[in-house]
């Protein structure tokens, strides 16, 4: 019997689907872990919204350069072939459909691929959106990486988002600790399951009609 994926295993699972030559933006938070699991031998170009293609891993301690940071404002390094650019060009790369994949975290994803990941809508919450809305509508494929359930046990894959939206019908695939879901016009298809949850339980918890890939 398999087990539910932990965060690193989820990141490794997402990384498997990133192909040779893909240009990828990893959102801040959980998706950042994907960088640690990119398959060796594949040439993959990382984009960071603050103006760099060809981003490398974190520097050795003592080698930090605070003019060279990622979207989470952490120091990074440059790989051979790296290029720098200003913010309007960086977001043109997103909006213009030049990124192959972006990986984002989420509060909720709807069955039609609506994404909510920037604001809980709580009255005392300070809203902050950053580049989330541009990434959501810009990349050719938007992968979401999240635990399937909230701490209270509610599904984050939902009929309709109750949190404020980041983008409409923009998510193509959802990687969770329990299953991988493809979202397409024909509906939601479960392509893989982890752990001991049954298909019936998954349908009950999500409250969605699910299709299951063979």
């Amino acid at each position, binding site marked *: 019997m398999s087990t539910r994926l932990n965060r690193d295993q989820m990141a490794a699972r997402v990384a498997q689907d990133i192909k040779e030559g893909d240009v990828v933006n990893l959102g801040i938070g959980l998706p950042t872990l994907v960088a640690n699991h990119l398959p060796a031998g594949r040439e993959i170009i990382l984009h960071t919204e603050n103006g760099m293609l060809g981003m490398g891993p974190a520097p050795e301690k003592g080698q930090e350069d605070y003019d060279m940071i990622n979207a989470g404002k952490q120091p990074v390094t440059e790989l051979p072939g790296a290029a720098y650019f200003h913010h309007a060009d960086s977001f043109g790369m997103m909006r213009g459909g030049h990124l192959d994949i972006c990986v984002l975290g989420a509060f909720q994803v709807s069955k039609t691929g609506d994404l909510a990941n920037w604001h809980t809508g709580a009255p005392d919450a300070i809203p902050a959106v950053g*580049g989330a809305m541009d990434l959501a509508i810009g990349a050719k494929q938007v992968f979401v990486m999240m635990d399937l359930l909230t701490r209270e046990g509610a599904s984050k894959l939902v009929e309709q988002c109750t949190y404020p939206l980041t*983008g409409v019908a923009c998510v193509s695939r959802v990687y969770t600790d329990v299953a991988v879901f493809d979202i397409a016009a024909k509906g939601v298809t479960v392509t893989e399951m982890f752990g001991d949850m049954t298909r019936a339980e998954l349908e009950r918890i999500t409250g969605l009609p699910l299709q299951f890939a063979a």
Partner: protein
Amino acid sequence: MISKILDSAAEAVADIPDGATVMIGGFGPAGQPIELIDALLAQGARDLVIVNNNAGNGTTGLAALLGAGRVRKIVCSFPRQVDSQIFDGLYRSGKLELELVPQGNLAERIRAAGAGIGAFFTPTGYGTPLAEGRETREIDGRGYVLEYPLHADYALIKADRGDRWGNLVYRKTARNFGPIMASAARVAVAQVREVVELGTLDPEAVATQGIFVQRVVAIAPAPAKEAA
């Protein structure tokens, strides 16, 4: 002889009036023109409208300007950070107006101002609360939101090297908003690590052309310290 070089940060920001709209470059600490912000704080202008990606970190730079009560409104994409306590307090107490703009729309509105564009349709934000009340249009089956340019009276930016014509080169991801903010402001002020002789910068590598820059000030880098 053309010379846009000024002797001090104080001189470079001396004429910024109360009520001015001031763009401040930087993405977090990278590219943040700390010494120009400090000079603006010392100069005393009030009731400012600030355009920046963030809303200040810690208690220095932009956060200090906010904390001193000099800012009426901030236009930004990502105010909430682990060390944005000064912004958080002012926002929650209603002492600071916030215009929250998706980051790419912020950049494109700044670019549009510098490029003379009257408005543009963008897919970013369509169908979200940040597009509420705005004009939308469906173009080739896709929803777009109308966004207007964002002009400024002044831009305070940081570059690596500059010459007396105002040509600038940047360092790594510190470039971020510098080139577009310079183009969108009536007066763009660049602090540079080093002023070099005209002809020193490789013309192929100039990232902001002098036509967009009105003032250049050399600020020797502070001793290396870790960003928050």
